[in-house]
């Protein structure tokens, strides 16, 4: 069999720009009415602008947050009945809280890139000189902030409905810290999964299929970190789980940054 060098298909360049680099070249000579188009703003400014856009979109037509709130409360009530009015503590409590968070997050992940795909937001973004990593970072930060807001409501509801002896006041900062790290991991991996699924026809089906296996280690680590704090009397949470949680978040942050151009490029 003869060997011939592959011919690139029409429309593909010889080399892609560096991942998460200083900025993709502008694809259009359009005028610059916003901060994304005006000159070459800093990366953080791009992220801030895009994050504000996400929140403005959520404020104008609330979709993600109310859905996640209602779903979480519904699941807690379901557990209340499922456990036959039983209350939980320790690993079981951590599992119920974290799995509920994960399932609620799946709803948010499914909608995270919807506007970009359905309303041409991605095409509009491609016309700006903003780096792809700014959009992915803004998506992850938006989901992270949604999850943190969710926990402001869901955790008190969980304590009220399901936790055996209530929360130890001294444990609250540590619980908040563990949830902060867990939510960051869900947000970063979720932004990635949402972007992958957004390009597909059956995105609603693909999001849980891809996100659940990816997030199992995160839930396992967060459960190990949270379980001692939800036990009565409170036990000591080992530092290695926190470190591993931070490492998991760090790895996915790096992956997100590295592949961001592949997500956004046309």
């Amino acid at each position, binding site marked *: 069999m003869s060997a011939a060098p592959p011919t690139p298909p029409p429309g593909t360049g010889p080399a892609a720009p560096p991942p998460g680099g200083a900025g993709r070249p502008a694809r259009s000579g359009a005028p610059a009415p916003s901060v994304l188009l005006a000159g070459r703003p800093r990366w953080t400014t791009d992220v801030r602008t895009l994050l504000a856009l996400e929140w403005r979109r959520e404020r104008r037509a609330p979709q993600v947050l109310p859905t996640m709130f209602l779903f979480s409360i519904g699941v807690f009530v379901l557990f209340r009945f499922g456990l036959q009015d039983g209350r939980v503590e320790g690993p079981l409590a951590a599992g119920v809280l974290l799995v509920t968070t994960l399932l609620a997050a799946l709803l948010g992940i499914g909608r995270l890139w919807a506007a970009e795909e359905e309303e041409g937001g991605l095409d509009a973004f491609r016309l700006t000189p903003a780096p792809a990593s700014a959009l992915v970072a803004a998506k992850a930060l938006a989901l992270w902030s949604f999850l943190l807001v969710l926990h402001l409501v869901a955790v008190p509801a969980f304590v009220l409905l399901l936790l055996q002896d209530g929360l130890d006041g001294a444990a609250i900062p540590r619980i908040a810290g563990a949830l902060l790290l867990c939510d960051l991991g869900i947000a970063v991996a979720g932004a990635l999964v949402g972007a992958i699924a957004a*390009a597909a026809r059956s995105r609603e089906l*693909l999001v849980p299929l891809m996100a659940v*296996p*990816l997030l*199992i280690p995160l839930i396992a680590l967060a459960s190990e970190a949270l379980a001692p704090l939800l036990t009565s009397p409170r036990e000591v949470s080992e530092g290695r*789980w926190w470190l591993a949680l931070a490492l998991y978040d760090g790895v996915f942050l790096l992956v997100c940054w590295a*592949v961001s151009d*592949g997500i956004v490029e046309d």
Partner: protein
Amino acid sequence: MPYARRLLPLTLITAVIVVAWVVVSIAVVPTDATEGVRQKLTYLHPAFAIITLVAFVAGAFFAWQHLKHDRPLDDLRSYVAIHMGQVFCLIALITGGIWGRTAWGVWWDWGEPVLVTFLIIFLLYATYQPMRFAIEDPERQARTASVFAVSAGIFAPVCFGVVRMTTNLLHPQPLDDPGSNLPGTAGLAFGLSVLALGALFVTLWHLEVVHKSTRIRVRQLQRKVEGEDAVPVVARASSPVTL
């Protein structure tokens, strides 16, 4: 197609290594006094598991090359590595189940983290094809698949690390545990099993890359000669189409 010339020597080398592996495992290594024939699975199951992870990491590497250089051939290499990895992963799960049945009395133990981790990785990669072929635009399909392959390829070793860290292991660790180091000819058979399945993986990977790239080229030529409608779009459901 650039691989076609290497296929014959590669196949011959693989055949020699595979024969050596089979002969050493069956005829040379004595049957274990306590474990019996079951112990022979040590020369099959772990090697499949090791090569599976190598295949997924190789898939991630080629996907990264695709994202970096935008060469369609890298996407095909990544696709084939992952596809082969899925087959090896399934065989590792099945042979692991057989070993579990003979050693522990159960086909599957949900409390065993290594098994569950392997299943998680298998399930994650099982979404690769549905995800890939749910995207119609071939170039976007290739790019999104590469993003997935890089993410999953990094996730697989991380997942193993985390699970080993969080739970006590029941699964034997022949390479880590000094007490269960394989002696003499058994160690040789184990090394040969990894080498033979590694060579088998590389050969099959080459074969599939050559086969698919040839098929893509033939279709391209057919379209040129007979017109764009000569080859049905349904062909897209079986493999990457850009090269």
